[in-house]
């Protein structure tokens, strides 16, 4: 009897410890970013482009990188969704579960999901060389699109699989075609689709390796797809490697902006998935 009690307490304690460890590291990360970044964060930071270059410049802001990140992640999310949604609908709604092609495709997406983003960057870069595209906003969008497609397909898979088969039978028994049924599915999973969009956007906005060779870097806000574009993660990388302490401090301010982006995304997607649970 006593042994069981000790066991129970021991494992409860261990679980509590690991939870605390995760929570503490999260607060340490956010705390460091705020502590080091907040003194450098001002209105100029989010409203101006760098003054005197990103590497040496001690004034001006990061608007080029903020806009660049939004362009790259936004463009990639839109392109990625245009490809991923039809793929998941086809694999999960049109093809039967046992279909060899469907199984092979899903396995491929699982593998793609695990590939490091630097490989996507390198792949997109060689593709750009082949096509004669220079480092540009377009190149960055293509690389990040490749990166987010497996994330989107897997998230959508998960969402579509959890739709009860009653919905399928309800629509089909009314004489719906596959496409009409897919439209009903879409209504059922619309919150899940939004979650997939936000997850992909969050991943795209924070990734550095995919954009390093492909989007390039620029102190100016890109006005066309063929101009190089700065991104926040890459800006942080460059600023941190600067020898000037003030520029390093500005790196933390940039990190703070990026963290706020991610925070907003997480909060919005949590609210959305909450809504979904309520409505179903």
């Amino acid at each position, binding site marked *: 009897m006593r042994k069981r009690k000790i066991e129970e307490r021991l494992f409860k304690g261990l679980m509590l410890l690991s939870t605390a460890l995760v929570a503490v590291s999260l607060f340490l990360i956010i705390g460091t970013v705020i502590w080091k970044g907040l003194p450098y964060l001002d209105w100029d930071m989010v409203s101006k482009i760098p003054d005197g270059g990103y590497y040496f410049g001690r004034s001006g802001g990061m608007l080029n990188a903020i806009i660049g990140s939004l362009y790259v992640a936004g463009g990639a999310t839109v392109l990625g969704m245009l490809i991923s949604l039809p793929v998941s609908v086809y694999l999960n709604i049109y093809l*039967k*579960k*046992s279909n060899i092609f469907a199984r092979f495709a899903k396995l491929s997406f699982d593998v793609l999901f695990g590939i490091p983003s630097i490989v996507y960057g390198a792949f997109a870069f060689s593709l750009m060389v082949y096509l004669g595209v220079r480092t540009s906003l377009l190149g960055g969008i293509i690389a990040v699109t490749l990166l987010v497609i497996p994330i989107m397909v897997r998230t959508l898979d998960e969402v579509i699989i959890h739709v009860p088969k009653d919905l399928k*039978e309800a629509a089909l*028994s009314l*004489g719906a075609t596959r496409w009409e049924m897919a439209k009903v599915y879409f*209504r059922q999973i619309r919150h899940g689709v939004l979650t997939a969009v936000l997850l992909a956007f969050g991943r795209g906005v924070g990734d550095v390796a995919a954009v390093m060779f492909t989007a390039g870097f620029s102190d100016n806000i890109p006005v066309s797809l063929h101009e190089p574009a700065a991104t926040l993660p890459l800006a942080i990388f460059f600023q941190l490697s600067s020898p000037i302490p003030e520029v390093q401090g500005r790196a933390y301010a940039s990190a703070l902006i990026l963290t706020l982006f991610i925070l907003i995304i997480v909060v919005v997607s949590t609210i959305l998935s909450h809504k979904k649970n309520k*409505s*179903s």
Partner: protein
Amino acid sequence: MTETPHIRIQNLNVHVGDQHLLKNINIHIPDKSVTSIIGPSGCGKTTLLKSLNRLLDDIPGIRVSGSVLVDGEDIYAPHTEVTHIRKKMGLLAQRPFPLPMSIYDNVAYGPKIHGIRNKKELHVLVERYLRAVGLWDEVKTRLHGSASALSIGQQQRLCLARGLAVEPEIILGDESTSALDPISTKTIEDLIIQLKENYTIVLVTHILRQARRVSDYIIFVYMGEIIEFGPTEEVLLNPKEKLTQEYVKGFIS
């Protein structure tokens, strides 16, 4: 049987992988009456029901042979369009599952996909079928509210109205009251009895008392085979086959 058959099943065999789910089914289901399929769980009741509107098509590894004639047309013939077959039959599932849209749109969905676009026409249909299932007065003030806000019993009646709105000839029920409370069950049973004047109804049920209350004919299925088929009183009170006797008395379940 004096009635004209509406559905004729001939030499129907269903396999999934190496399992033989339905064995040599031959039966004529009479027009404008209620036929219940009874039998122990896993005997093939639902498979038999779903073979009637080809909802089996999506099961991996399924093979269907034989024919099912509805109004003389073989629904398993290669050129038959499956949406056209399903339009003739409304399905009332085990648990109600409203489509993710408003009450109004749930009923209007079927007519819409079959080409009715005129708003007045749609409204007439929605009202007619919500009245037919006794739901109109309960929901008329919130037609555009979400269907999932209704109680389970109301949802099941909504699903029935949704099925009726495509104007089928046949209603299929797959243990349609198993998720409902006794009062909602009674409402659905009364509706079924009322609807058989205009529709051919085939139900799957595991409740013998329900089969007795609502059906005119009974099919007893055991291990994928039809053991006995006949008028309700005959099969339940005076079964010819030994297996039916044992099932009705509760020795096998």
